[in-house]
Structure formats: structure tokens, C-alpha cells
């Protein structure tokens, strides 16, 4: 028997989204449960953002079924949005207002009394380590700071579920780590996170479970480690040869490891023992300009399933 607590917060069946004659989401099934950290991994144009906008009860579905908190977004959009926190891809911070006023007015949209919105805005700015910038304008903030303000804003209504669309795209590595740390804390506090990303490391860091999307469909689903284990040998040997010669190397690496991928910029050899594969390459007299052995990642899973890389 399904009880209220284990009912999925999001339930999608054959979910579709079309824009005129373009079908952005082509009938996908997924569920997200309370406290879970769930990701949509895929390249640009995979249909992730369209899916997020439907989950955000902003964009009407074109077909299939979608329920959030057991409610129908078509009918109960407002009630659903009242329980969500949304971090849109482009921040949508109001540059006419100060950092703190951005949070306060957003809180007012949820009917939070002004005094409480004011207090809460300072707590949240403290949480994202920007309390000292409360009176600052938005414009002088760095990209990472703006992102943190947006996350603080999305938490003003104590959401049960946080939707993050490409949370760290365009940020430098340090800013990404600061952001991941904050999101990780939210996850530990039991906030359900749903995020889209085209960064495999982000998906691995943050997601308990994810779906890999490509061209509007889901091509795989599972925990990051399970997906890697299922779809890719343990290690990858990356070889770089002089530019434009990769295609001629097919013979040199043929049969080494479990599988080879000849990409324009590098050759990947999938093997349980990367070092052994490299020894074999050397034994054959092949002289790559550089060689690197690394663990298999979600990027490799994506390549395996779609024949393409995540970031084109």
C-alpha cells in the first residue's frame, strides 16, 4: 500500500512538451521522492529546461500525465508553486532592487508578512555567505554571488522541493564548489532537490539518482555509480595524438580494452585496467602525445548511450 509519505512528489508518465511542430520532450517517465536529490543530465537541447518548466507548474504539459505533491499543475498551479523553490537558469534577479529587497519582495509574492520576509532574507543571505552584501545592488556582484542570491531567494518560502536549472553553468570552479557545498547542506537538511545539468561532475556530486536525457527522451536512469558500473568499464585511457590524425589510429588501438571511441580531439579506450591498456599501446609502438588513465564517469555513459559527448 502506498502511504502519503512514500508517494512521489513528482510523478510523470509519458510527459510531452511541444512548441508548434517541435517536440522538445517526447514522452518521458520519472518519479521523484521526498528527500531525494534527483537530476536531469544531458546536453543543451535535450529537453531538460522544458521539463523543469513543466515541473515548476509554469509551462502547461502538451501530453501525458504530471502530478506534483499529488496535485495537477493544470488545476492547482498556484498551490504547487507555493511549495516550490525555483532557481531559473538566468537568475531573473531584479537589478532595480538591492540584494535583500530581491528576497523580501519574492517572499511577499508568497504572502509572507513583511517583517518575517525581512528577517528570513537576512538568515538566508547568511546561509549563502552574502549577509554583508544585503544592501548591495545586484549589478556589481560576481556570477557566483548572483547565483547564491538566487538560491537564497528560492528558499524564502521554505520550499519542500527546490528546482535548480543548470545551477553552476558559467561559474568558475571555486564558485561552483561554494555553491555545491550550500546545496549539499540543503540536501542534508532533507530538502528535495531536482536539478538539470550538463556537467557530469555536478550530477555525480549532487544527485542520488538521475536520468540521462537526449533529444527529448530518457536514455538511462539510476544512481550515478550504478549507471557508470552498468554502462562503462571501470577505467578510461585517454590518448591524444597530433591534431587530425585520430582517424588513422584505429588500427593501432584496435582490440585494446573493452571498447574504443575515436573522437576528433582524443581517443578513449575503455578498460578495467587502464594502465595495462596503456602498456599495450606502447608495446604496439604507438606514440601518443599524452596519455591519461582516469575512472569512468557519466560523460562516458552518455557517450556510450548516445554516441555523442555532453558538451559539444
Amino acid at each position: 500500500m502506498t502511504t502519503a509519505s512514500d508517494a512521489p512528489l513528482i510523478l510523470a508518465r509519458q510527459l510531452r512538451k511541444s512548441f508548434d511542430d517541435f517536440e522538445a520532450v517526447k514522452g518521458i517517465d520519472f518519479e521523484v521522492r521526498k528527500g531525494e536529490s534527483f537530476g536531469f543530465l544531458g546536453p543543451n537541447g535535450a529537453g531538460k529546461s522544458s521539463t523543469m518548466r513543466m515541473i515548476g507548474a509554469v509551462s502547461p504539459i502538451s501530453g501525458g500525465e504530471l502530478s506534483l505533491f499529488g496535485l495537477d499543475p493544470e488545476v492547482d498551479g498556484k498551490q504547487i508553486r507555493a511549495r516550490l523553490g525555483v532557481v531559473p537558469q538566468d537568475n531573473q534577479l531584479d537589478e532595480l532592487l538591492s540584494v535583500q529587497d530581491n528576497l523580501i519582495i519574492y517572499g511577499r509574492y508568497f504572502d509572507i508578512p513583511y517583517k518575517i520576509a525581512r528577517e528570513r532574507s537576512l538568515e538566508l543571505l547568511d546561509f549563502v555567505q552574502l549577509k554583508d552584501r544585503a544592501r548591495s545592488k545586484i549589478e556589481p556582484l560576481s556570477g557566483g554571488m548572483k547565483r547564491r542570491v538566487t538560491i537564497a531567494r528560492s528558499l524564502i518560502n521554505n520550499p519542500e522541493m527546490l528546482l535548480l536549472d543548470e545551477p553552476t553553468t558559467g561559474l568558475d570552479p571555486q564558485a561552483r564548489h561554494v555553491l555545491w557545498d550550500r546545496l549539499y547542506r540543503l540536501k542534508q537538511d532533507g530538502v528535495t532537490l531536482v536539478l538539470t545539468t550538463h556537467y557530469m561532475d555536478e550530477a555525480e556530486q549532487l544527485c542520488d539518482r538521475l536520468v540521462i536525457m537526449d533529444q527529448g527522451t530518457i536514455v538511462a536512469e539510476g544512481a550515478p555509480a550504478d549507471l557508470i558500473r552498468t554502462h562503462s568499464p571501470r577505467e578510461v585511457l585517454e590518448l591524444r595524438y597530433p591534431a587530425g590524425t585520430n582517424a588513422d589510429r584505429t588500427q593501432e588501438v584496435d582490440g585494446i580494452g573493452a571498447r574504443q571511441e575515436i573522437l576528433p580531439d582524443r581517443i578513449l579506450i575503455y578498460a578495467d585496467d587502464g594502465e595495462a591498456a596503456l602498456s599495450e599501446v606502447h608495446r604496439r609502438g604507438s606514440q601518443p602525445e599524452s596519455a591519461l588513465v582516469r575512472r569512468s564517469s557519466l560523460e562516458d555513459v552518455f557517450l556510450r548511450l548516445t554516441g555523442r559527448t555532453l558538451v559539444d
Partner: protein
Amino acid sequence: MIASRTGPIRVLEYQFMVYLRVWKSNVAGSVLRPLLYVLGMGLGVGSLVDDGPRGGQLLADLTYFQFFAPAIIATTAMQILTNDSLWPIRGGFVWHGTFHSQTTAPITPGEVVSGLLMWHLAKGLLSAGGVALVLVFFDSTRGWGLLPAIGFGALAGVAYSAPLVAWSASRKNDLAYPNVLRFVIVPMFLFSGAFYPITELPGWLQFIARLTPIWHGVELCRGALHDTLTVSSTSAHVGFLLVWVTVGWFAAQRVFTKKLSL
């Protein structure tokens, strides 16, 4: 849980919050500019007209200053709200994304429009009020009629802003926006009956002038100040303006809903 119906109020609150940051430049627009108009046109041109051969007869025994000054209540509201219905709308969709962030919260696109037009009405009242304040300082334009004129001026302003908000929102870019000012607002201002009675125009142009909201706004403001309005004329003018407001409001709700629900 019952869905909150406070969306338009929250949007109004947002607009007020932004206004608090820019009110000084707005005051310049609604007090200083009309003051210059009133002084330059009303007194300057007025001295020519009043001393002219048809002065009193043409303006129903009003001085040119008394004729011209109340019209500025309506034209100022029109100009200020027109500006608020062009680039700020683009800003809400594209530059600041305000409309998008409001609709990710429990506010519907229709409520965004309602709140925005409520703000335009408030801003129209402030702008018209600024002009009325200027007119209080002149003996010949001081009177209780200024109070209803503030309301009529604001209504005339929203009769422009409601359809313009719908139009601006429907554009893919802002390239056509300056044309609204050049080819719509400026001609309407010139033919609004603010500067001279439209009976001086050829018949066909008079007919067109009567179809513009601003002529109705000018007639209401002038009539309110000089106590020449009747119940029937007031109802007709107000009714005409309300039609523009209502049509614009519904059109804007449609466009916003379409654009914010992609």
C-alpha cells in the same frame, strides 16, 4: 489550501518598491515638466490668444491659460504611462525577468497584468496629482474640480497604458517602440484638444480626434475644473475610456499568459 488571490496586490507592491528608488526623477516628470508647459504655453501663448480677435468667444469665456492648463493633467498622465508601457514591459520580460520570477511564485500571468495596471492607475494619480498641485498655485485654476480631474487624468492615462502594455509585450523586440511615441502619442497630443478646441479642425480630423482616449480625458479634466460637465457627458467620456482600459486589460492578460507559459 485555497489559492491566494493577493497576486495583483503583490505586483503592485513590487512596483511601489521600485518607485521608492526612482521617485525623484518621476516627480520631475510630473511636476516640473507640466509647470514648464503651463508657464510656457499657458501664459506665453495665452497672452497672444487672449488679446486676439476671437479669444473669449472661441474658448467659451475662458482665458487660454484656464483652457490649456487642466488639459495638461490628462496629457501628462498619458505621456508618463505611455513610457511605462514600453521599455519597462520589455524589461519585465527580458532585462530584469521580473514577470518570469513573479510567475514562478504563486502569481498568475493575468494577475501580473492586473497588478501592473493597478500600479499604472496609482502612477497616473500621482502624475495627474503633480500637475493639479501646480495648478493650485494659480488663482484662475485653483478649485475643487481639480480633485475629480486627477481621477479623470489617471483614467485617460490607463486607457493608453492598458492596450500599449499588450502591444509592447507582444513584440519580439523593442525596435518599434520609438514609433509609438513619434507616430501615436505626439500626434494625439497635438490633436487632443489640449491646445485648441478640436472644432477648429476639419470635420474628418475632428472625427478621428474624438476616437482618441486623450480627447475624452482632456474634456473631462477641463470640464471638471470649470464645472461644465453633465452626467451624460461624463458618463460618455468615462465609458469610452473604460472600454479602452477593459479591452487593453484583456488583451494584455492574453499576451502575458501566452508568453509566460511557454
